[in-house]
């Protein structure tokens, strides 16, 4: 036999239809024979009706402006950091791809240690032309850093009488 306090804890759930058949029957029998618990039930019923009435009495909202606002929000292009984070979050957030993050970090370390990202020597090709005597003979120097080649080119200004001497050297000429 349940006490009034125990029954009052169940009256709300009984009104909601959430008790088992046996519990519901026990509450019903008690409430029918107890004026204090019957009053409790009446107050709860009135409270529920009042709450519903207050909460449901709000002005409804129109669908069209709501949908337009939502559609605008959906189509709005997200800022690039947020967009990229979203794209990363999806594949990397999956449990079966959890190994991907340490694997990526490991791969990056290996590539770094192999020097893939070492800074390349900037191209600094050098060319110079110098007149070496009064007969129109010139010397031209071309230094190409990428292949470490130096070309020394001797020539004369007079047409048809060009003296050309190609010479390659791995070392810079001593000028």
């Amino acid at each position, binding site marked *: 036999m349940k006490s009034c306090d125990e029954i009052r804890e169940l009256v*709300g*759930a009984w009104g*909601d239809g*959430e008790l088992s058949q046996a519990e519901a029957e026990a509450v019903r029998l008690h409430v029918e024979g107890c004026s204090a618990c019957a009053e409790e039930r009446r107050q709860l019923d009135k409270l529920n009706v009042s709450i519903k009435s*207050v909460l449901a009495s709000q002005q409804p909202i129109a669908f069209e402006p*709501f*949908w337009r606002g*939502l559609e605008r929000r*959906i189509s709005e292009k997200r800022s690039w950091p947020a967009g990229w984070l979203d794209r990363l979050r999806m594949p990397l957030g999956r449990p079966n791809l959890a190994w991907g993050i340490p694997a990526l970090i490991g791969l990056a370390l290996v590539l770094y240690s192999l020097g893939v990202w070492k800074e390349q020597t900037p191209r600094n090709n050098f060319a110079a032309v110098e007149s070496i005597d009064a007969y129109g003979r010139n010397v031209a120097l071309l230094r190409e850093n990428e292949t470490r080649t130096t070309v020394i080119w001797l020539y004369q200004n007079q047409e048809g009488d060009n003296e050309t001497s190609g010479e390659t050297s791995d070392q810079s000429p001593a000028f």
Partner: protein
Amino acid sequence: MELSDWELVQKCQLGEIGAFQELVSRYQQKVYLVILGLLRNPDDAMEVAQETFFRAYRKIKSFEGGSSFYTWLYRIAVNIAIDAQRRQKRNLLDFRDNMDEVFEEQQEVAKDPFADVHEKELREKLLSAINDLTPEHKAVIVLRTLEGLSYKDIGDILGCSEGTVMSRLHYARKKLQEKLRAFL
């Protein structure tokens, strides 16, 4: 023949925006009223309702149908609303301003279900008492009384057991009853 929620969700997952529009039209009003029940401010409720559907749209590919669509949707809505409510409560002055606006709006509603002064007073006291509840207690009251959801569905939405829902409801109703005893 009208498509079920799950059929519409599957179409959404294939990129059909029209299917999502249909889902929005089915639940927009209900979601808005639940959020309004929690926040009491129509502008905030509208913002949270839109954010709810926006997040649902972004996450819809991850919805696998383990629960019903509306349970999933309400879970998103209630979580955002409870967060918003906590922020709202931190600024008590704003909160009181919102309450005053709500009371004014309530009195302007043409089809007033409360005919006499006694009933109007009850409504004001009731709104005030509901607002004094914790977000978790307010959520169970709104989901049960307004939406008529089962304890199981409420538990799924709030991430708690049916027993916890029952206990929270009992406690919340008791609080409201104590504050409104003179009117009941």
